[in-house]
């Protein structure tokens, strides 16, 4: 009985080792980040971005639906009166330190003004850098890329 167990444990030991041994010849799946990068999917929920229309006007009309929908109150919008009795968006801030990247704000926007990009490297050195204002949201963010 005991000898059987010793033999079977040796066999199993060799079987386990053979699995790891064959893995020596399997191509590696590790991505050498940051030298290699993976392409995110089209639907990736990264940093938010505001869009302009064909004539270069801001699409956002300041309806605040996105701010209303946001589960973590990450969006702050201040509106006021602009030219020609039009409503004007004075400031639009997203605090991405609070943002869950859930995408509910994008679904809530009735003007297709808000969308999400594939940008995911959002770390920065201070809290203020986590608050994206209108200027930051209308252009692609500056991302410090790793250089060799």
């Amino acid at each position, binding site marked *: 009985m005991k000898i059987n*167990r010793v033999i079977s444990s040796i066999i199993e030991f060799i*079987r*386990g080792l053979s*699995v790891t041994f064959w893995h020596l010849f399997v191509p590696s*799946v590790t991505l050498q980040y940051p030298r290699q990068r993976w392409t995110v*999917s089209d*639907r*990736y929920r990264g940093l938010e971005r505001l869009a302009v229309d064909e004539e270069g006007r801001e699409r956002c009309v300041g309806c605040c639906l996105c701010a209303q929908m946001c589960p973590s109150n990450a969006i702050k919008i201040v509106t006021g009166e602009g030219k020609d009795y039009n409503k004007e968006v004075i400031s639009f801030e997203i605090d991405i330190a609070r943002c869950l990247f859930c995408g509910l704000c994008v*679904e809530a926007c009735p*003007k297709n003004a808000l969308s999400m990009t594939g940008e995911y490297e959002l770390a920065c050195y201070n809290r203020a850098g986590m608050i994206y204002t209108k200027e930051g949201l209308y252009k692609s963010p500056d991302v410090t890329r790793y250089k060799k």
Partner: protein
Amino acid sequence: MPETQELTINMGPQHPSTHGVLRLVLNLDGEIITKITPDIGYLHRGIEKLAEDMTYAQFLPVTDRLDYLAAVSNNLAYCLAVEKLLGLEVPKRASYVRVILTELSRIASHLVWIGTHALDIGAYTPFLYAFREREDILDIYELFCGSRLTTTCFRIGGLPQDIPEGFVEKVEKFTKIFPKKVDEYEALLTKNEIWLRRTQFVGIISAEDGINYSLSGPSLRGSGVKWDIRKAEPYCVYDELEFDIPTGRGIGDVYDRYLVRMEEMRQSCKIVQQAIAKIPDGDFIATAAKFVPPPKERVLTDIEALIHHFKLVVEGFKPPAKEVYACIEAPKGELGFYIVSDGSNKPYRLKIRTPSFANLQSIYKMIEGGMMVADAVAIIGSLDIVLGEIDR
């Protein structure tokens, strides 16, 4: 004869094998545990209370943060509960995709479990292999909903978007290679002498005790109870799919729970294969203007749709005043949402029945019979707890 006395020590909350921030107070007689007292609450975020101040649609992303290893299952349980409250019928297509994604989440959750459980016991290799396969599942999530961990994958009434191009192929490719990978893990562990000695006859709980301690999921099935909500009260389209419920060898030790989960991964893979071949055509979200926002194209062009959209975003919907409970078979056991609605746009009370919380209490029973400190690590691993779910 030198005098001996019991020693009380802390295990955790910062301990790698407690899978999060679980604190265990151990009374030791030498190396034998005489008493174990779990101390929970280090990860309490007040999620149930948060729900009372959010509309039903807003609360969905928060459910990701319960069992963060299987966020999709949490989303499904919550959506099912709200749909039951509203009496909403979900299209077949959405149900099939929901089944595919939740079964994948079961596999992903079990993969993390086998990786960390083996790592706790001292086998490092399965961890690396399991995380390699989990990566493929996360890629599928990213393709479908754009996020890998906190998915917010479903919406009340269906799915946020239709399945993208390449989704079916990617899932099929995964299900083709995955059973071979499970064989690989089993070759490393199932009959390995060290693994057997560390897991067999450790942390035994009988079927009767298991039921009395309200154990559920794979941990209960390890004791030989054939109880699975997918079979007992089928939700989504599980009644149209074929699969078995594995029960292990009926002893109820750590090894049995291991066997059950390994077999479950194979069964889940089988379910995904069947479901992906059967996805019907049709809508991916229910049409119900009162509860589900109209499609975006309509909102952009049609004033009626725009009004509905505004109303649903600003106010949310108002379900009838009643109480519902809906549960699913989550990777870790029975996950249920109990919603009390008072007819307003926010839940009056929302109670989450999480499997890890109920499963953890059976540790009192499992530790009986002279278990050692190292066995406690194996037992916690075999219970597969997630502290995000226990503390909420």
